[in-house]
């Protein structure tokens, strides 16, 4: 139901154009700390609840608080809205709101804005008392004028000062009001969402934010001459709206995980923030350890004791956990590791997206440490992956690494409310007395799996070791025993691989000119690019991998049906034609390495490490450039 707005009628003496769109991207950019992301999150949530497809991506500067009015320090959020499901952040921004012209300039220089974008820009800087600020404004306007932007100056600060003393704390809600008018958002939902966003704060803070929302809405109604109309989906089931890290956290609760051990690291930390709010209510514990290594140790210890434990980290933390993960593999202790990837190496790009850890997650341990690696592709999958990961870890008594990334972690999208099942939760481990003769590593020669022993279990007494050991858990350097135990650990993966289903081809399963292969969060952008390419007549299909270790069966056969196979990834590869690069020495995308090694197919790659999610338009261009025999 459309609820009354703030009582400001659109003036009848001017024309307001209403543009009907099926898909549109909006950006809000500001200096760090001005709340642009909060504004966008609320706008995205309201839109999702109204039935729009939504995908949000946060624009986060590298520093916690970069200098103000700096193009490199732009902080904000992009919200892509659609009249159907939206699976990625799209290409360029159609409507931007900037709190200062320097933040806008940062986005302009990254080609984030459509050439004809409409921009709402804080006007105060044009008349700022500081002449250097006025000069920056003039220079920025000059630079921006090389595009066909429509820039509308908005007196944001002047307006906000009518409600608050510190407009830095209020512009975001004023802008939320502006956007609510432009996109005809339901104000009552916006008010509710503000209440939710500021829950735990004093009531007057929420009230003031609602006042600012209404002020922005009224200003838009009085002064702006354009609005957008975008259709909505008819939801067949109740929907929930959250980001990928929240989904991982709630998925962990639904999966019956009982302990999350972590050390704060961007962009993974907010998983533990969400768990901190809800986990204890469901009997869980969030343990912030003294470092990444200890976090892995605590989780392994809890799991060894019979609980369902997991640890959360990002690439640099994964590197630190390496030795402990090897211990879990060797001692056959079930463990789920969530790695929310960011750019690397070293501490790399904390706030930017990259699919940087595939090979590290698979091969990071010394020696042979076979374990499972899988990657959710959507925010909904971030929720459900936790149940599957936990179950596999327990079934195989091994480590399961879940590779999320910064794109999923901070992206917000709606998905159907999960129909929870008690069967998703772990059954208590079998603690009946161990029958006589059963050994701690009584490997089933067919599957390599052995019964899990729980400390204190009658008849199960043994010494746990990270050294090579025999079935009785006795340290043994005997070459035959090491060979056998290695074989058994590897066989678990083989047995599990036998349960996997060959992935479906998106497009022509029978084959064609080009097969694009992706993994993780790029699925939405790849499939959108492939759909556009196919609409343009190109013979291109895609395939998305969820299980990366072990890989599903049938890949070589599928690849054989296409003239060319190419991975699309957000990690580094040498560009063909660059100095010294040959077909033999070229360093390739991580999945490309893996697929070439396992299928012996000449899998090409197209990768980028721009610190942002892939744009479907850019993938489309890559498809066009890589079509065997050129574009048809």
């Amino acid at each position, binding site marked *: 139901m459309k609820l009354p707005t703030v009582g400001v009628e659109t003036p009848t003496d001017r024309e307001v154009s209403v543009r009907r769109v099926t898909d549109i991207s909006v950006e809000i950019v500001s200096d760090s700390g001005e709340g642009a992301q909060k504004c966008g999150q609320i706008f995205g949530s309201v839109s999702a609840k109204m039935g729009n497809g939504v995908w949000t991506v946060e624009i986060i500067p590298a520093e916690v608080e970069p200098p103000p009015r700096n193009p490199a320090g732009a902080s904000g959020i992009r919200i892509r809205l659609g009249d159907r499901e939206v699976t990625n952040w799209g290409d360029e921004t159609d409507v931007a709101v900037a709190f200062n012209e320097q933040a806008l300039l940062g986005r302009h220089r990254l080609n984030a804005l459509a050439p004809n974008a409409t921009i709402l820009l804080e006007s105060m800087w044009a008349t700022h008392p500081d002449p250097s600020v006025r000069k920056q404004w003039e220079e920025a306007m000059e630079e921006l004028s090389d595009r066909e932007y429509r820039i509308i100056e908005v007196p944001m600060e002047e307006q906000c000062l009518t409600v608050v003393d510190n407009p830095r704390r209020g512009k975001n809600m004023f802008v939320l009001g502006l956007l609510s008018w432009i996109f005809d958002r339901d104000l009552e939902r916006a008010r509710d969402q503000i209440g939710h966003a500021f829950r735990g704060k004093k009531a007057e803070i929420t009230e003031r934010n609602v006042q600012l929302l209404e002020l922005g809405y009224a200003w838009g109604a009085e002064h702006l001459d354009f609005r957008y109309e975008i259709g909505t989906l008819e939801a067949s089931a109740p929907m929930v709206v959250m980001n990928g890290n929240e989904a991982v956290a709630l998925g962990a609760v639904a999966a019956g995980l009982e302990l999350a051990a972590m050390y704060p690291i961007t962009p993974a930390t907010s998983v533990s923030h969400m768990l901190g709010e809800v986990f204890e209510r469901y009997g869980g514990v969030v343990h912030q350890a003294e470092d990444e290594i200890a976090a892995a140790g605590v989780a392994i210890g809890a799991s060894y004791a019979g609980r369902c434990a997991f640890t959360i980290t990002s690439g640099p933390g994964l590197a630190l956990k390496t030795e402990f993960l090897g211990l879990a593999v060797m001692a056959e202790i079930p463990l789920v590791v969530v790695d929310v990837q960011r750019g690397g190496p070293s501490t790399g790009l904390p706030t930017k997206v990259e699919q940087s850890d595939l090979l590290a997650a698979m091969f990071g341990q010394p020696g042979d440490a076979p374990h499972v690696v899988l990657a959710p592709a959507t925010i909904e999958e971030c929720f459900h992956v936790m149940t599957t990961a936990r179950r596999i870890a327990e079934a*195989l008594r091994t480590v399961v690494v879940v590779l999320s990334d910064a794109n999923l972690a901070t992206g917000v999208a709606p998905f159907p409310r999960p129909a929870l099942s008690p069967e998703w939760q772990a059954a208590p481990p079998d603690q009946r007395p161990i029958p006589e003769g059963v050994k701690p590593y009584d490997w089933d020669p067919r599957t390599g799996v052995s019964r899990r022993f729980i400390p204190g279990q009658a008849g199960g007494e043994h010494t746990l070791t990270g050294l090579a050991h025999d079935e009785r858990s006795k340290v043994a350097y005997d070459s035959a025993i090491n060979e056998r135990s290695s074989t058994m650990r590897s066989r678990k993966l083989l047995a599990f691989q036998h349960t*996997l*289903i060959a992935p479906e081809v998106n497009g022509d399963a029978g084959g064609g000119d080009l097969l694009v292969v992706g993994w993780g969060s790029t699925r939405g952008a790849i499939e959108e690019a492939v759909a556009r390419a196919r609409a343009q007549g190109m013979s291109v299909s895609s395939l998305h991998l969820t299980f990366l270790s072990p890989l599903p069966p049938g890949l070589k056969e599928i690849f054989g049906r296409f003239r060319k196979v190419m991975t699309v990834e957000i990690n580094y590869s040498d560009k063909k034609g660059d100095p010294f690069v040959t077909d033999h020495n070229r360093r390739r995308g991580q999945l490309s390495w893996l697929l070439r090694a396992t299928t012996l197919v000449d899998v090409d790659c197209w990768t980028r490490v721009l610190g942002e999610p892939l744009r479907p338009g850019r993938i489309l261009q890559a498809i066009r450039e890589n079509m065997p025999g050129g574009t048809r």
Partner: protein
Amino acid sequence: MPSDTSSGNGVGGVVAPALEALAARLDAFHSAVATAEEELRSFVAHRRGASEYRAEQALVELGPFAVGKIAPDRFASILLDLEELTGEAEQVLDRAEYILSAFATERDMHVVTVEPGGDLRDAVREAFTQMGQVFGAARAVELARAGLFDPDQHNRFLSALPFRKWNRAERQLAPPLVVELDPDDLLPTGLGEFLDGQVKIVLVVRGMTTPAPLARLITPGTYVVQTADPADLTGLAVSPHPGIALLFDQERSEQARFLHDPEAGASPWERLTIRHLPDRPEVGRGRRPPRWLEELEHLEMLARRPSTDTLPGTASALAGEAGTAPAQTAPVDQLAAWLLSQTNVGGG
């Protein structure tokens, strides 16, 4: 059964509004019990003849993420270790299901009456012990599912479970309790041991009590309210802290009305709101003041904000000695004075 301790048709007057105010908490408890019972029934049904539908079991255990990615039949045949229930386990589970189903709908157990001259602490302890059956049953289920149920050790879980044996999660889910009693039997200090997790106790008293019987139960993490208005119990019900309320049958000027909400601030004076404080009685020369006067003094002390120009705890600030302006002293001297004031050897 737990209903034996309730007042039966005594639920009325101020008890009914008290229960109404606690409805959300009651619903949460009963809903959790009903869910546990449903899960148990589903588990038993699945495990009876489990070998017949291993693939279905694998499908549901792996969750929606695995659909289309893992073949459940292959997973079941290779990796699913599913055993049928033993007869002994089935017996335990049947008994637990009976208990859970009885508790899922039982509402009378949340009200107990202390017989005149009875012991409030004993009544509360007994009520919680009876209600603890539900947690005992849940524990028995987990033990039976893990193959660990030993009748000699664990049969007690299927009868009653005293509050002191409840674990942290059980104390978080604790069912609320309304206790009817006479003013003479209101000795609430013994209830401190139950104020843990999210335990909520409402004492309903008809008649005159001492002014602030609950003052001594105020601790930084405990929600404490004295009121004659059942609507004030809403905060108790939703508070994430353990809490206790004293609900008067009517407002009397001799009874204090106050609220201590742990969420309201870090300092006692921020957390405590006094809505009504009775006048102090005149104590004749040489007469010993009544013991309950300490309740009021305690309440006043907690509510008093130290003046901003002296360190917290300085005697003049707390006693509110008007007219004696604090001397201009160095901070280090102020600190020393404050430290001395915290000891019994301060020379004062």
